[in-house]
């Protein structure tokens, strides 16, 4: 199925891809536009904070996460309402405080809280799941230069698994885009 070639380093290790370092958000932004226009699919920009507007420079679609979160949140709110309804009006009907026997209004606060609780859980866990996290290790995290992205460096990494990947041409593309250094990343 794979049309991609497996590249090896001189030491015989598989190549994960190429990693290019950039100095500023502006350089990274313009370089990302060039990589996008070259038609790459398996590549990513690594930055200490989300660069403003980078999703357009990278040509990324909007995330589907909100749909998942809304679906789970609303479902759980309905389930919470249903549970309270069962408890209060079916399993053990209780009439007190002068409230009507079928007063659904008093179920609203707990329904709301349950909806919020599950929305929050889905937002966090869904974000991690969409990102393929938690993950103990990644080829990039072995690179000393890459670890500085958590401080003040900007990295564009192109994976060797991309069909358009070519060690020389991709390196040239990244260098021409203004990279201050380009390194091979071992898998």
């Amino acid at each position, binding site marked *: 199925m794979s049309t991609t070639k497996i590249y090896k380093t001189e030491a015989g290790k598989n190549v994960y891809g190429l990693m290019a370092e950039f100095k500023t958000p502006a350089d990274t932004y313009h370089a990302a536009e060039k990589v996008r226009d070259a038609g790459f699919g398996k590549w990513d920009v690594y930055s200490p904070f*989300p660069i403003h507007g980078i999703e357009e*420079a990278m040509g990324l679609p909007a995330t589907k996460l909100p749909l998942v979160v809304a679906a789970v949140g609303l479902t759980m709110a309905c389930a919470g309402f249903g549970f309270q309804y069962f408890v209060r009006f079916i399993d053990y009907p209780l009439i007190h405080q002068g409230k009507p026997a079928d007063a659904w209004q*008093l179920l609203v606060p707990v329904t709301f809280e349950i909806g919020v609780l599950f929305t*929050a*859980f889905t937002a966090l866990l869904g974000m991690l799941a969409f990102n393929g996290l938690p993950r103990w*290790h990644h080829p990039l995290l072995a690179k000393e230069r890459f*670890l500085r992205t*958590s401080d003040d460096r900007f990295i564009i990494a192109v994976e060797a698994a991309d069909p358009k990947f070519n060690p020389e041409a991709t390196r040239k593309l990244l260098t021409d885009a203004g990279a201050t250094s380009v390194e091979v990343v071992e898998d």
Partner: protein
Amino acid sequence: MSAIQPDQTAAQRLAGLIKPPPSPPEMNPQTGDGSLVDDPAIRAPLVLGGRSFNDVTETVCGYIEKGPGRWWLPAFGIASSVAGLMPLSIIYLIITGVGVWGLNNRVDWAWDITNFVFWIGIGHAGTLISAILCLFKQKWRTSINRAAEAMTIFAVICAGTFPGVHVGRVWMAWMLFPIPNANNIWSNFASPLLWDVFAVSTYAIVSLLFWYMGMIPDFATLRDRAALRLMKSPEGQTLPIVNIRIDRIMAFTYGLLAVGWRFSTRHWLNYEKAYIMLAGVSTPLVLSVHSIVSFDFATSILPGWHTTIFPPYFVAGAIFGGFAMVLLLLIPSRELFPGMKDLITRRHLENMAKIILTTGMMVGFAYAMEFFIAWFSQNQYEIDVFLYNRVIPDFIDPRGAPYWWAYWAMISCNVLSPQVFWFKKMRQSIPVIFVVSLLVTIGMWFERFVIIVTSLHRAFLPGSWGMFSPTLIDIALFVGSCGTFLTLYLLFTRFLPQFAMSEIKNVMPQASPHFHDDHAGQAHGAGHLPGAHHAPEAPTNGGNP
């Protein structure tokens, strides 16, 4: 004003290419540290001292890696000793019974619920800063949100203890939750007390998730720095006795907490979306929590409690008291942690003083409105509660209130003291802000005491009137909860990132993709859309987003 209009050198410094000059920034009589700019055309800088991204990382991680200084251990020792009062008095309470408090048949809620409402209210400011200000795109929140969220969690921990132990038979507290049990009855979903259980536990969990999610990138930064130190030198500081290198422990622990975060843009997009959704649900949540807390009182028929203004009045009061607590924590932090003054500027403090003034006015309005409604409804019981249980001192009128001092303490702390913030000099003066915050915190405790105890101690039948006086256990439990709060906050300052580094970096001028450090003085704001034409250079364009 070189701080907001970078020249060639400043631009290089901001890009991390050269080190900042060692001299401290001079204080300007007009703009203080440079952040108190009055001109609306100039955006006040959010980070001072010409900091680069690396400076922010070094400052924030430095507090954890190098330790906060000599003051920390004694402070922690004192705070945790005081905190020890809390478990001691709780154990004594559980093995003896709630009779160890000063409660009696008339005043059956007193300091326990006062402390509960006090602490839960304090938590609300943290959520306001992290969620509501996030939705309103208030960028100045980025340097105070982490500390405020931490404060929320710790305040909710203190708050949750009080209803937990006041139920009497603590070992039956699981019956608060709708769990099938041998009695074949369920918890009462019509009761605001049960709503409270759901609201407060949801609030605690959601605040924790929000706090944790904000810290994931910062944990990754700490992990990467520890990993870099491990790569660079084979030797490093080790723990005593067990002989494990501290950097290895940090890389492992922060790595575990960072769940493999690697600052990928594809991840950031999901992250930012999840963050804004959490902010979106936390905003109605924080309003609902204190509304539901106020329902505990408002749905009863007791004069002084039975009031429809309670939900908004409680929410405003919670934010009011919470901001005071944020300031009480951050003003000393600014002095104790080097470099923090560049991140929490005087503008931040002034903004918070303005919020205290606004919410203080809301609270004052609510106090006045309670009186108006009592008079307007001509309900004799309600009029009597306000006049003879609260306002008129018993030394003036024999029918007057024995608790008049609590009421007047509340009014002078909550309504009168924030009025000094109408004056610019006052709200820009750090000692004044600190003193007012202290008064507001005291006043907000008295507010809950006034609402709870002065309404209860004399209700409908004079035959059942009584007084409440706290016992030593009441006092020890409250003082202990303050100690617990401070202990947890000190642990936070020692082991967790006190600032959201990635968020601060994002609001710095050089974070904009339109910031060009190679053109001297050409610091464009981040307000342009990608591809939009560059604005003509205006000399007053602050270069800030």
